């Protein structure tokens, strides 16, 4: 399979300048290596800092550890699915896996095919919710844009669906104007969002006006 790479631009937050990046329509071995060797240590460091604010590590139970093994196994499974990645400065900045076998739940679109985003994550150093300014801004937006574009390409008219992580609810509801279908008990009560064809059109139109 040939991997297509599109040139995109991210905002380099420290300098305020635009930087060139690649949006690739695949997740390859290089992405998994970056995840393991760069994302994982960075996230551990951040999580430890956060935890330290409340409980000294010395007081943590001996059995304390993060379930990285499970997550690593799942991440290694990414190679088997259709995915997208954002690469900047030769480092993976964001990952997305999509599923084209799911159907819409919004009443007006019920049963119609959509692009289901079953995994979207940006590198820890780009995540403002971890308590520091992101290095690059726009990685998540680029991946959502790719999902909408893929949906159009597949004839799904821009329909996408996803389960948002709690800290990202506002992004999908307010920035992407997606329909919030509420907590999904089949997915740890994460809120399920969908973008209808009309919302997708608006999403892309807003972008082309900018």
């Amino acid at each position: 399979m040939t991997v297509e790479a599109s040139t995109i631009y991210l905002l380099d937050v420290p300098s305020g300048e635009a930087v060139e990046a690649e949006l690739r329509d695949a997740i390859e071995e290089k992405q998994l290596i970056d995840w393991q060797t760069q994302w994982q240590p960075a996230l551990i460091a951040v999580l430890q800092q956060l935890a330290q604010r409340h409980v000294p590590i010395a007081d943590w139970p001996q059995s304390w550890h993060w379930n990285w093994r499970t997550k690593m196994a799942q991440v290694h499974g990414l190679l088997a699915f259709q995915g997208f990645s954002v690469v900047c400065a030769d480092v993976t900045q964001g990952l997305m896996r999509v599923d084209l076998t799911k159907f819409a739940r919004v009443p007006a679109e019920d049963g119609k095919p959509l692009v289901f985003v079953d995994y979207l994550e940006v590198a820890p150093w780009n995540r403002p919710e971890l308590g520091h300014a992101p290095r690059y801004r726009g990685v998540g937006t680029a991946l959502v844009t790719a999902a909408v574009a893929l949906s159009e390409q597949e004839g799904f008219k821009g329909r996408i669906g996803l389960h948002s992580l709690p800290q990202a609810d506002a992004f999908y509801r307010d920035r992407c104007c997606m329909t919030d279908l509420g907590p999904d008990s089949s997915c740890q009560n994460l809120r399920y969002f969908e973008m209808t064809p009309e919302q997708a059109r608006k999403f892309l139109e807003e972008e082309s006006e900018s």
Partner: protein
Amino acid sequence: MRLERSKQWWLARAKKEGNTAVSAGLLALDPMQDEPSESAVPIAAEDVRIAFGKFINLMRRRRGLSVEQLAEEASLEVSELVVIEDDVHYVPEPRTVYQLAQTFKVSQQRLMQLAGLAQVKDASLHQEAIRFAARSEPVQKLTREENAALEAFVAVLSEQNAK
């Protein structure tokens, strides 16, 4: 798939993203601290080991393999396979379970739990194991071959008793 947009277009979108988090799907959740769940209850390993033996037995038979053939394919001892299928008290070696998981293309982790080598934390797996063990209990009459094998074995046992 190729996206064609201008530099200004992407930059405007990046600025609009602001300081909001963007992530989706369970896989994107940060790893959680491993703690015994409140709902996790100790599950008797023997319960699920019944299912383990039956599972191996049925998987072997579904593939039309004799114990000897499965032992050869999975690089295991025949004697160990016989014990696995017949003795719920037997706890196999991790390597044995690994070889069986590879041979039958099932989750090594789950098979480890069934075999009693890992704690079953998932109550649904426990329930499924018991249900499987119950449902897979054969109710049909013995085949001619089974009858013949049984009679032959009974005969051997009788001889031993006689001595």
